[in-house]
């Protein structure tokens, strides 16, 4: 058992080294999320965002080695990415303790940072998967589906509620990314859990959601 955990953690470490965020990675990430010409400070913020997620990979790989085998390795990889996002968003909820604190006055509701289409599609896919699993009485998979919904819901809540950090434009773009990518991962997992044909739809939804760009928030009502 211990050997399996160590081997899994080493795999996680290898993935971490391969995916270690650099300036180039951060530039690609920010360009994709509508920050076309990121400054050095914005790139630092992008690197920090990616590091927060990927540093947790060895831990999550090790954790999955303890869990009973329940899916193929591809699905488990999706769980790792979703788990990394979940823990990173929860860690980002920590309050600031410096004496001087700055906040922008841009309202940040769920629909200010996330697309209604992404959230609506996520809800529809989750409902379809739940109905399918209920009709076929696959209760173990239903439990995994419930855990997926809970994980995505917590990520979405934390992406809205966590304190702002660094540059405002990057902060908003990365919040949107957290919501859209986690909803996409959730849809992909729901598809895999329900059935193979829904799995294909789930993967298509993941790609579409992960590429849905943020909208610009306005203060003026």
């Amino acid at each position, binding site marked *: 058992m211990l050997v399996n955990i160590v081997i899994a953690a080493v795999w996680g470490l290898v993935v971490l080294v391969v995916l270690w965020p650099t300036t180039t990675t951060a530039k690609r990430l920010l360009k994709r999320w509508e920050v076309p010409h990121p400054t050095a400070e914005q790139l630092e913020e992008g690197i920090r965002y990616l590091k927060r997620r990927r540093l947790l990979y060895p831990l999550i790989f090790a954790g999955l080695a303890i869990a009973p085998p329940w899916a193929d390795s591809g699905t488990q990889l999706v769980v790792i990415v979703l788990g990394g996002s979940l823990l990173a968003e929860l860690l980002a909820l920590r309050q600031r303790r410096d004496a001087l604190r700055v906040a922008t006055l841009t309202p940040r*509701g769920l629909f200010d940072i996330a697309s209604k289409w992404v959230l609506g599609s996520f809800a529809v896919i989750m409902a379809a998967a739940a109905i399918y699993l209920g009709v076929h009485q696959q209760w173990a998979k239903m439990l995994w589906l419930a855990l997926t919904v809970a994980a995505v819901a917590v990520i979405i809540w934390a992406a809205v509620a966590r304190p702002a950090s660094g540059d405002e434009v990057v902060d908003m773009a990365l919040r949107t990314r957290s919501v859209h990518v986690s909803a996409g991962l959730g849809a992909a997992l729901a598809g895999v859990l329900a059935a193979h044909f829904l799995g294909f739809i789930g993967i298509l939804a993941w790609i579409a959601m992960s590429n849905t760009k943020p909208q610009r928030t306005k203060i003026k009502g």
Partner: protein
Amino acid sequence: MSSPRIVVDVENGVAPWRQVRDQLILLISGDVLPVGSRLPTIRQLAADLGLAAGTVARAYRELETEGVLTTGRRQGTVVAALPSYAPNPLSAAAAEFVAVARSLGVSEGDALDAVRACYVE
């Protein structure tokens, strides 16, 4: 264009709720936040400033009582009217300068010397 900001120094001796309230009045009087502008929720502003929700709620409540802000279920908190008075902009600018100087660990004497040097320039 960057959006308006609130800066709170929790060690400058002025209650944080008053700092929030005064800066909102300044932004509204200066038309940086025109009538109809949406403000963040109490929870959001409190989280971003690392303050208790009650602290920001007090600032909002004071401004609601004065008729400057209004809160509705659908629209959230919005600027309803210009304040009937405006805080002294020089005092507000001085408070912001002192907050920044303190965050840099600059003594009162050095901060005043920096101001005098600006006049000489």
